[in-house]
């Protein structure tokens, strides 16, 4: 299947950072990429005859001429195969399409100070943030948390930034006094965080405990939609019935069936793909709906959520 729209590109280089992390540099073919800013993600389309993937990745850097951008991808074997494809099959010259871009995690320009906390591959938006803050002469500190064996790779990635602003820890945040450091921040500080679920929960709870105002807390859940039990989706409008396989998302199943379903972040973070549920019980996996909305079960974010029942009827 050929992508209907988007910006054609090829992979210009593959940089192996660790056994599970690779950096891919994309070069636009015959044009420029859409404009990106610090914190932007791109939805990439790639794959082979057997399978097409559409995955969202944070842009870690982009050239000002709009012809080159790079992303870092962690190989996630338990996911639906996109990252495995990029790690195992993608090489110099592999075609890849930038389907769309958006910034759901921008730097708050008027903030006096920025505290950036990341873990693992959650570093990716902050590579762009830190460089933008550095260029703007802003006050910021980045704390990155990773496994001991990956520390040298992250040190190399962050080497161009001033050492006084960058802290790389190979122990969990609670073991390095992160709560105390957060509590000592000036009242003007804005907090940003990105990483795996456990880390996100820790930072979210800690920020609430020390009284960070919600308007100054910014996060991006980058998590990869995982598979689950297959189920059937019925579209009330057209009467169409679509099977959702165990290793594809509801959104992918809709797209493969030629249904023009809304979407943006493809990671349960933006809410653009929300559809009304008429029958069946959704299994919510997003970070957008409130607890009340999840309990009501009238809305589903198709990019990550699945069904608890065998059939789900959508108002589409």
């Amino acid at each position, binding site marked *: 299947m050929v992508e209907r729209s988007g910006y054609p590109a090829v992979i210009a280089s593959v940089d192996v950072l660790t056994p599970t992390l690779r950096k891919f540099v994309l070069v636009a073919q015959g044009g420029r990429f859409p404009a990106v800013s610090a914190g932007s993600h791109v939805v990439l389309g790639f794959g082979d005859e057997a399978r097409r993937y559409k995955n969202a990745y944070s842009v870690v850097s982009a050239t000002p001429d709009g012809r080159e951008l790079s992303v870092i991808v962690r190989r996630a074997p338990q996911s639906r195969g996109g990252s495995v494809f990029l790690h195992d099959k993608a090489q110099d010259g592999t075609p890849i399409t930038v389907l769309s871009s958006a910034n759901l995690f921008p730097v708050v320009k008027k*903030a*006096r*100070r920025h505290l950036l906390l990341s873990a693992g591959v959650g570093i990716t938006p902050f590579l762009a943030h830190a460089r933008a803050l550095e260029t703007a002469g802003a006050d910021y500190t980045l704390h990155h948390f990773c496994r001991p064996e990956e520390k040298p790779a992250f040190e190399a990635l962050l080497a161009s930034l001033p050492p006084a602003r960058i802290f790389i820890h190979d122990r969990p945040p609670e073991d390095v006094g992160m709560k105390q450091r*957060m*509590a*000592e*921040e*000036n*009242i*003007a*500080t804005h907090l940003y965080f990105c990483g795996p679920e456990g880390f996100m929960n820790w930072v979210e709870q800690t920020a*609430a*405990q*020390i*009284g*960070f*105002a*919600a*308007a*100054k807390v910014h996060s991006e859940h980058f998590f990869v939609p995982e598979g689950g039990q297959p189920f059937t989706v019925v579209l009330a409008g057209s009467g169409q019935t679509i099977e959702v396989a165990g290793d594809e998302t509801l959104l992918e199943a809709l797209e493969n069936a030629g249904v023009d379903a809304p979407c943006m972040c493809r990671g349960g973070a933006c809410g653009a793909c929300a559809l009304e549920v008429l029958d069946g019980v959704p299994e919510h996996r997003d970070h957008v709906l409130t607890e009340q909305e999840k309990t009501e079960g009238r809305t589903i974010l198709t990019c990550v959520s699945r069904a608890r029942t065998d059939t789900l009827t959508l108002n589409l």
Partner: protein
Amino acid sequence: MIVSSQLPFAPLVLDASGVRHLYVRDEAACPLPEGCGAATPEVWTVVSDATAMADTGEGEVLLRSATALLERLAGRLARERVGLRLYAAGGASFLARVAIVADAAGLGTGEVQFAPPRDVARRVVCVHCDTLNEGVAADTVRCLGCGTTLFVREHYSRGLGAYMGVGEPEILLQAMEAAARHG
């Protein structure tokens, strides 16, 4: 939809998401925020009494003027750590000045509450000569700076802490009359 440029006035309620609370008021008659007891805010009060001594008791600070309170507040907020919630009550002009100090210190939405003002006297900035006219209770005011009769617009500048006053300055009227005479 009409977008109000006013400060977001609402009755004060102690915000449990904060870990420290500071309440500033320009009169001792202003009541404490709702919900005090679960946590006790530090209270700073303006008392018009030259014999007032600062730091008289536990968490209770008395100040001799609003200006003294605001200077002390600016110093405090510059050193303040994350987790503080600020509450302000008093006259419209006092609240406007608290907002300026809080904004300058980098406090944001959810960190400051303003009680509905205790008076209707507004600060009005003359858009022609930038003079700040204090305590304007009517809809019009003769500008202290340029003498123009200003109509007070429902347009509040949070940065200036004042409403816009717009009129037809004498010099403009003269120019228009001259133009009318000479065609």
